[in-house]
């Protein structure tokens, strides 16, 4: 019984990690290439979820909703880049944080104005309903397995994009020397817009996928954004590989902590006390891990800048 529970929790951790990777990959890409801290990344996640819920409700198909979420997030991302972000590249990080924080407020209230404050309904597509049997006798939700699959596919796709294509070459060049590739005649403005839209689309995809599991509502992006920042700090800012490893570490540590800590504490104290203290400790566990990793590797596990 305990092994099946452990396997199920490991899969849960992996699924959370994969979802965080979709968020963190865009965030770290944007930081790596343009040196921009984008706090509004969580809002793009929210836009993806709202677009998916709205289109799925109108057409009856989750899949069309998923495509809409990619398009909407990428579209809004591109508009934001051209209208606002472009003016921020030469400013310092504090200005960027202020401006993108303003974007969070504008996008959240905009979404509230358009869709109202009550959560929207978005269900898992019929093909992915229900649970499947795991080897060893356990059961696992099919949709979560599908999310893990999507995450692995996106990770592989990003790897190929960055290592094998011309766009990827420019992204890598942009990461190592921004001025130089501009001087070599690459249209840096278009490159930035494309990278920003790509990151936004990944966030929108994450929002749509998770929206079907959770509730689609205003403000859903901010808690995920905080975790995504923990991920890129652990993984090393600007590194996609770091984002992947960091996301899996955060996902697994968070899930395992929530599950194991209260049971461990229950060995030494009364059950109700153990659950309260265990829950409190579990919620800070990922930050403890982050502090430990930073103590030994101050620039993260795979820093792109080193």
């Amino acid at each position: 019984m305990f092994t099946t529970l452990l396997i199920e929790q490991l899969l849960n951790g992996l699924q959370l990690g994969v979802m965080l990777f979709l968020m963190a990959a865009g965030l770290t890409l944007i930081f790596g290439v343009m040196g921009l801290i984008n706090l509004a990344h969580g809002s793009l996640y929210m836009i993806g979820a709202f677009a998916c819920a709205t289109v799925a409700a109108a057409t009856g198909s989750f899949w069309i909703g998923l495509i809409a979420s990619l398009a909407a997030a990428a579209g809004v991302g591109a508009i934001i880049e051209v209208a606002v972000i472009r003016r921020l590249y030469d400013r310092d990080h504090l200005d960027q944080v202020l401006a993108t924080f303003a974007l969070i407020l504008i996008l959240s209230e905009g979404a509230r104005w358009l869709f109202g404050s009550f959560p929207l309904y978005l269900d898992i597509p019929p093909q992915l309903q229900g649970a499947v049997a795991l080897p060893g006798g356990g059961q696992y939700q099919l949709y979560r397995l599908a999310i893990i699959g999507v995450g692995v596919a996106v990770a592989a796709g990003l790897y190929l994009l960055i290592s094998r294509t011309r766009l990827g070459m420019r992204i890598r060049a942009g990461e190592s020397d921004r001025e130089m590739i501009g001087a070599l005649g690459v249209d840096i403005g278009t490159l930035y817009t494309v990278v920003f839209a790509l990151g936004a689309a990944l966030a929108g995809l994450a929002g749509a996928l998770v929206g079907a599991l959770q509730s689609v509502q205003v403000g859903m992006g901010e808690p995920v954004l905080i975790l995504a920042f923990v991920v890129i700090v652990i993984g090393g800012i600007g590194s996609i590989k770091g984002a992947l490893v960091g996301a899996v570490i955060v996902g697994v540590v968070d899930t395992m902590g929530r599950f194991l800590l209260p049971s461990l504490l229950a060995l030494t104290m009364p059950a109700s006390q153990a659950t309260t203290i265990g829950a409190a400790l579990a919620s800070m566990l990922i930050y403890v891990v982050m502090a430990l990793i930073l103590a030994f590797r101050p620039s993260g596990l795979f820093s792109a800048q080193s």
Partner: protein
Amino acid sequence: MNRILAASVFGLSLATSSLAYAEPVKIGVITTLSGGGAGLGIDMRDAFTLAMKQSGNKDMELVIEDDAQKPELAVQIAEKMIQGDKVDLMTGIIWSNLAMAVVPNTVAQDVIYLSPNAGPSALAGANCNPNYFNVAYQNDNFHEAMGQYANKDYKNAFILAPNYPAGKDALTGFKRYYKGALAGEIYTQVGQTDYAAEIAQIRASGADSVYFFLPGGMGIAFMKQYAQSGVGIPVTGPGFSFSQDVLPAIGDAAIGVKNSATWSKDLDNEANKTFVEAFKAEYKRLPSIYAAQSWDTANLILAALSKADVKDKDAFRAALKAADFKSVRGEFAFNNNNHPIQNVYIREVVKEDDGVLTNKIIATAFEHHKDAYAEKCGM
């Protein structure tokens, strides 16, 4: 000359009439209008303003502010309302952790606070206060009813709630009446949206039922994930987990679930019919339990105002305590600790003919129920 005389007579009459009516009554409303918990606060605000509007009372000024579900922000707003706006009454807070941050300090400054939702146990017992009126419930109440009801069918329940004052009150309340064994007990984070780790533990625990208290978006996320997980053990919860604000987003997964509440749309009394019709007509949606409680709060204030001047604190407190208003919950009275004595019902989620998910009452768990902390209150 005549004109001057007329003007001065008019002026005098104005002065005397303003003596009679004084200034408008100022009510400070602090509630959650943004973020994940906004649906609850908006229902609270909408019902409150609608009740005030329908009363036709013109000598009323509402100061409404958004606390964004953040305790520190709620404290600042409360200070501003008391010191700056000089409000006569305060109300509106949805969440118990915010109530704990705001209420003790507010009532200590001799401002009357009426709670339309949160009812933390810490304010119901030894720390009860003559300036604090809870028009909703004491936090434990709904859960006590469900604990009682669970004895009928279940012997080994798994219980979970968020780690904040109302969550702890919830599980304490459930355990007070539930006699069976506990397969597990979990406190989750406030605002958590992924419950995979908890659902895995439920699956492994061998429980025969799950009782969960997760208001707002938390409950939507849990129910959707639970329905998909293939665990299949029956779930129950307090009315908050299956309230009208979250049912449309949970979807059909909620059908048939039993939950406890002091109010339901189909509760058969005149005040409730008026309320449901008025709310539907004004806002084109069904009211939630938060709206019902807030409507009652507004009507309690209006009833007290018709009897006593709000500046005469003693008289006004006595008028509030008499609770001489038509509650949408039927019979309603205040206990010695200014918390309600009321019935608690068991409801079931049903799909109506027009496809709308809502609750209907199937049993009465407690009649004239009092909370467990009242005897510790010195009032």
